[in-house]
């Protein structure tokens, strides 16, 4: 994978992706959206703000809807940005362009997907620090790989946004 700035520095391009990496990336908005309707994953994306039941109840009624809308709109933006990705480019190597104006939406969507996958498979600190398997044999291995891959993409965006 290569990372470069294109379009007069207004776009970050992830290029030379193979089909597998591109497909895994294309899944990110869907994972983030599904988390909103999965009770366990939703609990991580929308955690309780305190030990106070009254405050938590008010939070759920007045604050959570806005947060959920934020997460879903970020996922939608990323999906729109990836809608035109050419999965069979001439010369090989798939490219995904991230307009830097949309970088916050990408960070949000990638993070939501990472947290959702982590919650879904209950990875702990040890799992996260372990070496990735050489061969991905099951859904759990694939999810761990996605978490790390999306994290690399996040780091690239953060390096550009917060040098």
């Amino acid at each position: 994978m290569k990372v470069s700035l294109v379009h007069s520095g207004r776009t970050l391009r992830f290029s030379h992706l193979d089909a597998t990496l591109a497909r895994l990336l294309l899944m990110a908005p869907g994972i983030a959206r599904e988390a909103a309707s999965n009770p366990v994953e939703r609990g991580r994306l929308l955690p309780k703000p305190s030990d106070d039941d009254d405050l938590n109840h008010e939070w759920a009624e007045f604050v959570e809807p806005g947060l959920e809308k934020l997460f879903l709109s970020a996922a939608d933006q990323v999906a729109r940005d990836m809608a035109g990705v050419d999965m069979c480019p001439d010369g090989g190597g798939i490219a995904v362009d991230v307009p830097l104006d949309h970088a916050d939406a990408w960070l949000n969507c990638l993070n939501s997907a990472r947290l959702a996958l982590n919650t879904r498979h209950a990875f702990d600190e040890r799992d996260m620090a372990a070496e990735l398997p050489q061969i991905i044999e099951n859904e759990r291995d694939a999810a761990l790989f996605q978490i790390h891959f999306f994290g690399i993409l996040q780091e690239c965006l953060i390096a550009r946004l917060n040098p």
Partner: protein
Amino acid sequence: MALATPDIEEKTRDLLDEPWQVVVHNDPVNLMSYVTMVFQRVLGMPRDKARRHMLEVHHKGRSVVWSGAREQAECHVEQLHGHLLLATLERATP
């Protein structure tokens, strides 16, 4: 017979004046660089301070990142949640 006037206004004022703190909790997913950036953006911390608090979250499991009035504390927690950090608000310990 006159009814006693409840001391509502005084208690409400005390509750609002009581200091609250915003606590960020560790999780195995959020990137250190991301947490640092969020502290800078949401809480206006300079980078060095943001990094210190990030490391405190990482090593000690939690860090008090802000304290003050409850309304502002709620606003900060909402913003931190918007960035997918684990944050809570609690009454500041004296």
